[in-house]
């Protein structure tokens, strides 16, 4: 008979020993496994073009224009609707992407290596807030910004990151996350401290490796202006740390949660690589001026990997300032974190919350606890406009729908009971 508690302990020991390091950068087509031909990766569980939500349609349209596969929006839509392009989840390619999460072959990606188990994860560079590809925007300014990131930002960062890595001092993302939690980030919608710490870690090497003061100035200004720059790195760190859990027989720990704007999906350690899905939830959003509730698309993005890792919405108590962005009060933030302890198997050994007397963050969502308590994971999240091309409308709180957990529970019982 299977010993679930022992299997969960084994899974969590692996998670706590994970050491995600920033080891390099490269083009997606050169690094991401299976990134061949006209392929676009997206957030969440698998989905065909006909069922994609507005922001995901907007993002894949933009990616087709960015790649030069089409020269107009109409041409791009025709191509996307044909069988000429394959769509696959980032998660099936060792990658993660926030919001629409679209990764195309020529996009530069960070390489994160989990030193304890040797596996790697990949994520693009964060574009900033507002009218950006990941929120479904795709006009000329969005494509031009992506091109600047590829042609100017990427080479400068790549040189510095390679230099750190080759000199035996790759940046420890786990250390940055642990420190950022003590500086008011929860690492999902607030990455101000994480970005600042990354900036510090890279500063000297950037100066040493960049041959142009003008180029360096633009790179540093961009990083300084984008408080979310660390988000994608944190997500890839979480992905690299969690992926080895997919091989733990008998464990009821959830090791992937992701949304594509239409569906929400999870994977459970003891059930391997199978997605369990249901319709995505509707976030409760603090709207930017000029938008209303009917503009908000259902929940979208791989960024739920942060809560799966024990931070983000699970660490809201560490980030009282975040409520100004996602809504609610600091008391609500603490209540959410305390509630998540009810469905987690452990307290994190590296990530602690000063406001809770340095208690470890709730970590390791236990499917069986979710089922028994009726409590589903809570996330703080960005929100995209439901129509393609409009971009971000706000940020808020969203509770994951229970149906995917119910489906996973049935499969778990079928396999082990």
């Amino acid at each position, binding site marked *: 008979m299977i010993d679930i508690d022992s299997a969960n302990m084994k899974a969590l020991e692996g998670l706590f020993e994970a050491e995600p390091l920033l080891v390099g950068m490269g083009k997606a087509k050169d690094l991401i496994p299976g990134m061949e031909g006209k392929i676009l990766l997206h957030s969440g569980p698998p989905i065909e073009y006909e069922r994609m939500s507005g922001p995901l349609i907007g993002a894949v349209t933009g990616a087709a224009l960015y790649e030069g596969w089409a020269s107009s929006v109409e041409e791009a839509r025709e191509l996307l609707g044909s069988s000429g392009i394959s769509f696959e989840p980032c998660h099936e390619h060792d990658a993660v992407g926030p919001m629409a999460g679209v990764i195309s072959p020529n996009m530069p990606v960070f390489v994160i290596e989990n030193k304890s188990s040797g596996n790697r994860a990949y994520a693009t560079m964060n574009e900033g807030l507002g009218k950006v590809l990941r929120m479904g925007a795709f006009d000329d300014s969005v494509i031009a910004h992506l091109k600047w990131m590829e042609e100017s930002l990427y080479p400068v960062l790549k040189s510095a990151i390679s230099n750190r890595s080759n000199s035996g001092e790759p940046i420890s993302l786990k250390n940055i996350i642990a420190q950022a939690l003590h500086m008011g980030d929860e690492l999902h919608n607030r990455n101000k401290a994480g970005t600042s710490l990354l900036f510090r870690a890279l500063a000297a090497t950037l100066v040493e490796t960049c041959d142009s003061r003008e180029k360096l100035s633009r790179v540093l200004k961009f990083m300084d202006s984008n408080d979310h720059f660390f988000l994608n790195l944190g997500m890839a760190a979480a992905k690299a740390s969690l992926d080895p859990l997919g091989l733990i027989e008998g464990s009821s720990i959830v090791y992937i949660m992701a949304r594509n704007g239409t569906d929400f999906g999870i994977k459970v350690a003891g059930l391997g690589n199978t997605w369990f899905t249901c319709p995505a939830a509707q976030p409760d959003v603090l709207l930017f001026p000029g938008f209303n509730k009917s503009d908000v698309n259902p929940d979208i993005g791989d960024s739920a990997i942060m809560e799966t890792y024990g931070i983000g919405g699970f660490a809201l108590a560490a980030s009282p300032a975040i409520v100004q962005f996602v809504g609610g009060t600091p008391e609500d933030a603490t209540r959410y974190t305390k509630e998540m302890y009810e469905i987690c198997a452990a307290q994190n050994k590296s990530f602690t919350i000063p406001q809770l007397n340095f208690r470890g963050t709730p970590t390791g969502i236990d499917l069986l606890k979710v089922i028994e308590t009726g409590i589903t994971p809570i996330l703080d999240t960005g929100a995209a406009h439901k129509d393609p091309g409009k971009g971000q409308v706000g940020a808020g709180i969203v509770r994951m729908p229970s149906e995917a957990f119910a489906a996973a529970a049935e499969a778990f*019982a079928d396999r082990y009971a």
Partner: protein
Amino acid sequence: MLKKLLKQGPRVINIGLQSFFDALKQQETRAVHVDWRPPIVRGVLLDKLRKLRKGTAK
């Protein structure tokens, strides 16, 4: 008993919906809230999962 209740007013244990508790507090009623939700699955499946957790399945 009823007289005592009517005289002293109710003391309420609210189970489940937070909004019911909030409404009681707004009316200055003495109340405590128990945060409880029903399990996500029921019946045979729930029994199987509980046995698995206790290590008593099969």
